[in-house]
């Protein structure tokens, strides 16, 4: 029993990373209407930003803020320099451009930081034990960090005027434009939020694992799966789906084998698209 509880806890922590990155994807997908393949590399950037901030200040919180700022900056720059110019083009054009942007980010980080791994220098601690089940303090901190990032995002989305406008654009872009919502301001707010969320996801992934220029790309497929699973454009859905996917990956692997763990995200995605194309909470349909 303790074995399974431990797996579930591990899955929840992985799920937070997937959920946060899926949240970034779903925000962009819902409002700017294209799958942003640069999300993975924005995560990497966030991880490096946090790493540098942590090394300079010695504080993970300061590091996280720097990382989030770096992610937000790249999000906004990407919008201003690339995605805004392509607003009237097909979503394929946007998708291809986002892949290009991702590659450029990865290249820049490769040149700047090298290809060998970096790690967050954090003290390792032995776990607390709750009965049979070991609880790792670091997991709690990561969950707390993820939780506060989520609170900020949902606070912005549901409690502020700009958030209300963002949701209006997500519901109906044309209608929102007619009712006098400035698309530029909404879009900049969107990219700040999406970039920062991806960066925080990258930081958590970096703390859990190691930081290297390729790390974000490897996490992209599960993130897309979770965004689709949760329902494109649904922030709650993305997070819930991320958690489910994380737990499913950990719990299922003793059965399906470890090498197929990564394929699981893809299988879940296919299944969802076939059975319920709008995902758990979504409005947009993936099927035609």
């Amino acid at each position, binding site marked *: 029993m303790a074995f399974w509880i431990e797996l579930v806890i591990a899955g929840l922590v992985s799920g937070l990373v997937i959920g946060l990155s899926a949240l970034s994807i779903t925000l962009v997908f819902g409002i700017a209407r294209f799958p942003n393949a640069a999300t993975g590399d924005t995560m990497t950037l966030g991880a490096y930003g946090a790493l540098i901030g942590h090394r300079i200040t010695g504080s993970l919180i300061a590091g996280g803020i720097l990382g989030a700022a770096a992610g937000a900056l790249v999000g906004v720059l990407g919008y201003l320099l690339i995605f805004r110019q392509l607003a009237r083009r097909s*979503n394929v054009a946007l998708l291809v451009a986002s*892949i*290009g942007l991702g590659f*450029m980010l990865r290249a820049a980080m490769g040149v700047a930081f090298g290809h060998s791994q970096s790690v967050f220098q954090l003290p390792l601690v032995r776990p607390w034990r709750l009965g049979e089940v070991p609880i790792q303090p670091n997991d709690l901190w990561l969950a707390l960090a993820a939780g506060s990032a989520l609170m900020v995002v949902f606070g912005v989305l549901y409690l502020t005027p700009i958030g209300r406008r963002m949701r209006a654009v997500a519901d109906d872009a044309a209608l929102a434009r007619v009712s006098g919502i400035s698309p530029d301001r909404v879009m900049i707010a969107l990219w700040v939020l999406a970039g920062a969320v991806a960066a925080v996801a990258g930081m958590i992934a970096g703390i859990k694992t190691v930081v290297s220029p390729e790390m974000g790309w490897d996490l992209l497929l599960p993130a897309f799966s979770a965004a689709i699973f949760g329902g494109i454009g649904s922030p709650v859905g993305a997070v819930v789906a991320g958690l489910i996917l994380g737990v499913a990956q950990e719990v299922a692997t003793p059965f399906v084998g470890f090498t197929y763990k990564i394929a699981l995200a*893809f299988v879940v995605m296919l299944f969802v698209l*076939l059975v319920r194309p709008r995902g758990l909470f979504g409005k947009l349909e993936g099927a035609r």
Partner: protein
Amino acid sequence: MEAYLVAILIITAIYVLLSLGLTLQYGLTGLINFGHVGFFCIGAYAAAILSAYAGLPVIVGFLAAIVLAGLAAFPIGLIALRLRDDYFAIVTLGFSETVRIIVTSEKQLTNGVQGIPGIPRLVDGVGILSALAVLAVLLAANGAAIYAFRRIVASPFGRMIEAIRDNEEAVKALGKDPARFKIQVLVLGAALAGLSGAFYAHYIGYVSPDQFNPLVTFYVWMAIIMGGVGRISGAIVGTALLMLFLEGSRFLRDVMPFISAVDMASIRIGAVGLALVLFTLYRPQGLMGDFTRRR
């Protein structure tokens, strides 16, 4: 020097087959296939297993590569064609990653991560003549593919797939099922990728799963986006540019030794990214011409 040039031409010709498949799928029909390398991989492994392990004649491996890659596209098509464009892209990307995981995991068949060495050469012998013979076979295959491609483009079928790219709803309203056409296009493009994979396996002589990562797909995308989407000449010119770019960086380092090779790898992928962005922004029709005019 000649033999090196021939080697580059051989690799280019292998990639042109891939580009032609994607041109058919994306350029003409509008299918965003991000899993091209998956079909390439299936073709390469089919040829490798049948010739190196089963010891069957090379031609059997080639046929199997074409057929199996085509067949693999069929279920993916059935499932994915119900999806919107961008979802289709993600699903196909996931497909190619799954193919890679399967060839990694099914050790009895594929020898897993150790890969399959000792795949026989297409033409026995040493030196430039045998390389030229391989190139000749490849050029013949390319010629046949281009001939078939042009026949298709000029046919009612070609007219219909371009109509589908322009407006799928209108096609349905006229009583034709777009899915039927798209699935055929997907299978055709996949079969071409399979053929390309067979050539690749017999030329490199060794296949392992890590050769078939998604970067290959994006290289092909870069080629057709640079060359000109939807045009045969675009596929060829774009692929040639891609090779010039990938191989040129080798010589660039001979000429500019102060760029470290490690940075070179980053610069290479950064340049791929920059090319994708710039072409999307400023020249969506590619080098070879106008998206609106076919042929």
